[in-house]
């Protein structure tokens, strides 16, 4: 027993020493942004590049741990939601200062929330907090206690603060004074950004050493993905956050240690039929598209396994609904992706009077079943999927015409003119909470793509979804909310207004020189623990 204990203590000693060696690395981490950040104001950020800067520089009251998907205290040591979900009270960490030395107090939180909710600022981050008419009430009760009362209950209120970087109310540097692990030291427009270690960052590791371990982060603006991969292979950059299946397979064959598959992501690829009553498509096609049997038949006639295996080279999984298994809490495990079954598809179609004649499917009135599917040009995965669906649907006598359009033309058709029949697109999901999908599922929503902006729900099942989505949004009990949203997922699975096809995997490429890397499916996949990442001593030394 003693020997075992000695061994155990020895292993702990080795592990601590290893961490210490790793922690001494310093050096400069390098990776690429695909565009320039549009703003440094953390409340106005809406593009990927700006969000990257916010994640690495902004201090937040609480942070969603991307690995465990649980909220963890950061600047707030504790918080409490009260008054039926309208009020959130924070107890703040004491003795913290911004990167420029300005002290952090409850006034800063009050200032940030006020700015966030200022209708004149039009903060994209603030949109999620606007649950009802009226002003937010902020009460600062002491230097480290503050509460905010919103006009109406907000489901998942605490999780929304993961996106709110606290700004200083008093610092002369305004939004450039930060509480995160790095601050923006240099910005060469169109070329690169240099972030430097925040000397006032409050976090320390288990051995008491101040984080982050890295001295700086250099973000090169690089639009070309091929060049980005080449630079990674040459050792000029340290990781690529999201890579294509082709790049992943290539890395696996050349340098398997650099390829990371974090598993199925939150993103999904899906198609839908245009069900807008006023759309300029022929009446008989509108009848097809509004039929549940027709949509279910199309869904069953598509071989999702093949889509995942061929179009995505095996780095995707058939999708059953809007929530992928990556979303551990909200995923409805009861639902399975519709299996490929052309016989069942034809049976469903026959219930609506469709019949197969000489290899051509005809409706009750003898119209040959033919429709077009629009998708954005240049996306090889969607083009591949559409081509595969074309062959699958020809198996039940349906002619599918593929139309690839430039993105502005596509958006014009699906949001303004509604001059399209079916559309194939994908959803990039950043948020775990279904509240972020309210605009998609409410029949009055403008992202309710198959028939947006309805005055009253067009169908009974849409009315039911409206009721369930509103119920989940106004309930604070997460179990109850899950029950409601599970039902929404079941209705969506049954009715298939969106025909979910596949959820692709989160793939990343990481240099072996980078330590303490645990890529996850949630954004930012690779650098979610940037303050704990370090470089091998050799690379760190070269980049001092």
């Amino acid at each position: 027993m003693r020997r075992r204990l000695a061994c155990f203590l020895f292993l702990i000693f080795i592990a601590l020493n290893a961490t210490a060696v790793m922690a001494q690395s310093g050096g400069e981490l390098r990776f690429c942004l695909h565009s320039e950040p549009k703003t440094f104001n953390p409340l106005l950020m809406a593009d990927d590049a700006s969000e990257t800067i916010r994640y690495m520089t902004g201090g937040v009251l609480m942070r969603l741990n991307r690995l465990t998907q649980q909220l963890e205290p950061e600047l707030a040591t504790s918080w409490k939601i009260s008054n039926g979900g309208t009020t959130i009270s924070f107890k703040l960490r004491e003795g913290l200062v911004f990167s420029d030395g300005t002290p952090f107090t409850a006034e800063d939180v009050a200032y940030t929330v006020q700015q966030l909710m200022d209708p004149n600022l039009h903060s994209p981050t603030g949109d999620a907090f606007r649950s009802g008419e009226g002003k937010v009430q902020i009460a600062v009760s002491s230097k480290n206690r503050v509460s905010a009362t919103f006009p109406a209950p907000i489901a998942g209120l605490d999780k929304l603060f993961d996106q709110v970087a606290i700004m200083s109310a008093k610092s002369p540097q305004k939004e450039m004074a930060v509480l995160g692990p790095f601050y923006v030291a240099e910005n060469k427009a169109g070329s690169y950004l240099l972030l430097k270690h925040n000397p006032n960052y409050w976090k320390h590791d288990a051995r008491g050493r101040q984080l982050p371990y890295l001295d700086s982060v250099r973000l090169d603006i690089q639009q070309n993905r091929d060049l980005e991969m080449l630079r990674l292979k040459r050792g000029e950059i340290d990781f690529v956050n999201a890579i294509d299946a082709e790049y992943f397979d290539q890395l696996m064959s050349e340098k398997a240690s650099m390829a990371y598959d974090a598993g199925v992501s939150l993103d999904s690829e899906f198609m839908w039929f245009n069900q807008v009553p006023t759309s300029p498509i022929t009446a008989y096609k509108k009848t097809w598209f509004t039929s549940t049997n027709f949509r279910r038949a199309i869904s069953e006639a598509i071989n999702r396994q093949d889509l995942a295996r061929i179009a995505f080279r095996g780095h995707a999984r058939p999708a059953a609904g809007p929530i992928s298994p990556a979303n551990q809490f909200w995923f409805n495990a009861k639902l399975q992706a519709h299996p490929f079954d052309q016989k069942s598809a034809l049976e469903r179609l026959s219930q609506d009077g469709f019949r197969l004649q000489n290899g051509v499917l005809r409706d009750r009135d003898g119209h040959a079943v033919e429709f077009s599917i629009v998708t954005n040009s240049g996306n090889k995965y969607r083009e591949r999927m559409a081509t595969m669906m074309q062959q699958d649907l020809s198996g039940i006598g349906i002619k599918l015409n593929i139309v690839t359009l430039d993105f502005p033309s596509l958006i014009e058709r699906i949001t303004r003119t509604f001059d399209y029949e079916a559309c194939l697109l994908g959803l990039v999901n950043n948020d775990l909470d279904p509240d972020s999908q309210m605009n998609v599922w409410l029949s009055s929503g403008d992202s309710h793509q198959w028939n947006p902006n309805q005055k009253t729900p067009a169908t009974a099942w849409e009315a039911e979804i409206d009721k369930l989505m509103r119920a989940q949004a106004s309930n604070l009990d997460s179990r109850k909310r899950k029950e409601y949203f599970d039902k929404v997922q079941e209705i969506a699975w049954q009715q298939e207004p969106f025909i979910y096809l596949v959820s692709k995997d989160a793939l990343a490429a990481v240099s072996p020189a980078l330590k303490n890397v645990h890529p996850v499916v949630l954004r930012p996949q690779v650098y979610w623990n940037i303050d704990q990442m370090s470089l091998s001593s050799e690379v760190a030394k070269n980049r001092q």
Partner: protein
Amino acid sequence: MRWARAVAIVFLVVLSGACLLADFLAPASYAHQFRDEPSAAPSRQHLLGTDDLGRDRFSRVLYGTRVSLLLAPAAALLASLLAAFVGASAGLAGGWVERCIMAATDLFLSLPWLFLLITVRALLPLNLSPIASVMITFALLGCLGWAAAARVICADMQTLCRSDFVLLARASGSSGFRLLWRHMVPNLKPVLYAQFWISIPVFILTEANLGILGLGVAEPLPSWGSLLRELESFSTGSGHAWQFVPLVLLIAVVSSFHLVLTKEELTA
């Protein structure tokens, strides 16, 4: 360089013959996906392997060549005829008419072709068959590609109008359509001929550019543009020698079209 011209002509004739006989030569349909063999290497069943979706690459190259090689000359013919009409009218009329037409031609030349093509294509009906869409794409290319040739023809027409033999013809009582048809058009032929041959590779390359952007010929119909998209993944190191066949063909055909012209025609 006669031998080079001969080789180019033979190559173009053989290739045109092969693509016309694609229905007999192709071992499989260009659209059929052999889903158990995606990205397969060349074999007896698939002479040039298969593409990402398991389609026989040899069959797709044959049909893609048919699309590009037959429709590009058609577009070139349309563009040359339009150029002849516009250029000759301007050259014949002279004065302010010529200035107006040439100003319009210059304006047309300054239009960004690619964006114009993308815009026009976005306005097309959605339920067009791939064949109809490819015909329209090449017709658009033909309708948009006349301007540069029109300037050359206008200048040539003006030279002809001032030439001694036209003066002699006028003095002999020849005028109007007879003067144009009997004396001027035969002298414009070499220029028109050269413009036609020069336009073919231009249209082939324009279609290839559209195809690479994903805005070319609709799936599943192949064209050189869509076939060249496979090489996008070459940068990832997954490119194989057999994937270069469409590129080699494109270069060979474009070069052959240039070699077909004689020195005199090129300088015309």
